């Protein structure tokens, strides 16, 4: 479902970022509207996870250019917790373990923090317990998870379910799911994807970051973007994912004039079907230096 312009949730314009002095993102342009599902695909090291974490405000990344608007406001000047409270959710590729902190306690604190931000009632431990158990049923999660320490000793699949559980509790406006499908067997993938689909609606948007087309069999995207060398070099519909699955990424790079599996050489903005801002020539010229 595509809605009109006024529902623009996220708009990235010429976003550039470095980690430890190395430029990873080299000008990202992306518009995400309410009700949309976007998939960002691309080979390892293309900058997909960096982009996801950067939107959430990970301290390791330095923004060096461009801007990101969330509901028309400058997202980049908000602290990570403020972004979360504004409705940006990141499903982590590798959720960290937090020994000693009970999952139930963590989930309730996160939930109540958001409730209070939204001016709604907080839940006491008993009320929350009922509430969270209902959500867990949908993800076919064992209630034992509540008593265990956050992610500690969880299998890869359990960690991912726990991420989607948090998404279900926090009902974000924008959910960025970073390789939520990695490490999942087929059954788990079906459950997790089912959870995501239930949470997808006209008032929120989902950005899926993934290597494989597999996930997109379960969660149908409106747009598929290909990231390469720190840029989105091609955008298409869901069929693009199937084509990528069949043909790999190299042809896209070639088509876009970007050296495959390297930090690209030329401008690729033309391939981006979103309403990209004009990209400065300087950035284009700089492209191939680190290849």
């Amino acid at each position: 479902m595509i809605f009109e312009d006024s529902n623009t949730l996220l708009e990235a314009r010429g976003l550039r970022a470095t980690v430890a002095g190395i430029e990873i993102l080299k000008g990202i342009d992306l518009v995400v509207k309410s009700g949309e599902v976007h998939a960002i695909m691309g080979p390892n090291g293309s900058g997909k996870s960096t982009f996801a974490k950067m939107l959430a405000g990970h301290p390791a990344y330095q923004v060096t250019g461009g801007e990101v608007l969330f509901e028309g406001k400058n997202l980049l000047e908000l602290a990570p917790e403020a972004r979360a409270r504004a409705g940006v959710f990141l499903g982590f590729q590798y959720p960290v373990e937090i020994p000693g902190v009970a999952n139930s306690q963590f989930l309730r604190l996160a939930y109540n923090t958001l409730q209070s931000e939204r001016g709604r009632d907080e839940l006491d431990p008993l009320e929350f317990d009922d509430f969270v158990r209902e959500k867990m049923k949908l993800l076919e999660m064992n209630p034992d998870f509540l008593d265990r320490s956050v992610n500690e000793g969880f299998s890869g699949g359990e960690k991912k379910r726990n991420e989607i559980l948090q998404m279900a509790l926090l009902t974000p406006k924008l959910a960025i799911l970073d390789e939520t499908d990695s490490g999942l067997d087929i059954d788990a993938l079906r459950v997790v994807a089912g959870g995501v689909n239930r949470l997808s609606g006209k008032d929120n948007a989902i950005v899926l970051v993934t290597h494989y087309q597999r996930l997109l069999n379960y969660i149908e995207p409106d747009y598929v973007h290909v990231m390469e060398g720190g840029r989105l070099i091609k955008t298409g519909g869901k069929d693009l994912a199937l084509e990528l699955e069949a043909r790999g990424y190299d042809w896209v790079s070639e088509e876009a004039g970007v050296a495959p599996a390297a930090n690209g050489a030329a401008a690729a903005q033309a391939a981006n079907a979103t309403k990209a801002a004009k990209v400065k020539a300087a950035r284009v010229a700089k492209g191939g230096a680190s290849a």
Partner: protein
Amino acid sequence: MSTVLQNLVNQPYQHGFVSDIESDVAPIGLSEDTIRLISAKKSEPEWLLEFRLKAYRQWLAMEEPNWPNVKYPKIDFQSISYYSAPKPRNTLASMDEVDPELLRTFEKLGVPMNERAKLAGVAVDVIFDSVSVATTYKAKLAEVGIIFCSISEAVHNHPALVRQYMGSVVPVGDNYYAALNSAVFTDGSFCFIPKGVKCPMDLSTYFRINTENSGQFERTLIVAEEGASVSYLEGCTAPKFDTNQLHAAVVELVALDDADIKYSTVQNWYAGDENGKGGIYNFVTKRGLCKGVNSRISWTQVETGSAITWKYPSCVLRGDGSVGEFYSVALTNHHQQADTGTKMIHIGRNTRSTIVSKGISAGQSNNSYRGLVRIAPTAAGARNHSQCDSMLIGDRCGANTFPYIQVNNPGAQVEHEASTSKIGEDQLFYFAQRGIGAEEAVSMIINGFCKDVFQQLPMEFAVEATKLLGLKLEGSVG
């Protein structure tokens, strides 16, 4: 280390004020004359003076130990004043006679006294510099035969008991600092729970060092007779001075058959500034003797202050079936150093001990756990379980574990577990991504880490300890 973490661990000390109370201070320096002066000022009996002199002579022949994993300039024992008492020193009949400035001091500290003590249901003995200034609830405790008073009073009113037990757990020549304490101790708390009596309330002592250049050398002696039980709380604070102050206390616990002593400490001595200047050297000998069968001694400590913490609250499990426990949280920040742990000496049959140690290091501090579990040949069926966990906050601090295990009975079971974890940027980011700020995140992680120890504290103390750890680690998040 990230600025968030850095700000979190840079919280100023809250108890650093100096009370303007006139003190009666002994001349600086240590000699037999100093000891005679202390003894005379306190009108002590001859046997106690002999006890002190014997300790002093042994101390002279001893070397200052240098094995702990801490660094500090050599202490000049001749530059310390060994006696400092708030004036006037007449015996106080009621709390109304206590210097109001002193009461204000305790109010600032949040020490429950007077009505507040009654509301809190805690009997308090307050040691200010070296002298016990007030013991609340004495009369009520006396009804059930419990003696709770300053050790000076006990020397005069219950000399036989003091003489029988003082030095029986920590002999005068036990170690360098215990010998020094035995020579120059000025006051402390005495507590005696007679046979079969369960102490109806928690007993509490607050220690405060107020005078610069004075050492604090208090002595605590707790005796629980057959079937008796008591829960004892100890709190400590000190003003901020640029110089270091020595705190060398001795605590002795004696538990007879079926007796139960629980000793809890929340230590918040001044730790020095963020550059490591000033602070207390906390060199303390604490030991409990499970003398009787099925007796039990439990140490719980939350150590957050002191420039250097160097102590090993220990249990000597002599009675068959006796139980020793040690639950510890030691937090170090800035340039603080801690070398702390316990000793569990199993002598009796079927003795059991549990050690749970949680070390938290932040800033550039260094935190060591050192513990001894010794199973004597006589200790058939002895069991020990030790768990030592370290947590690092930031990347400039250190944590060490030095377990010593000596097993001389083949039937004994000894287990040791250890872990090290780190509060990393990724954990804080995970919390932040769920809308939870860094302060709340750190406090949640630390409380989770310390849960096993906090559960052992009496409730009000647990609340205080949680707040204290929060204060020590939280700050303006930038």
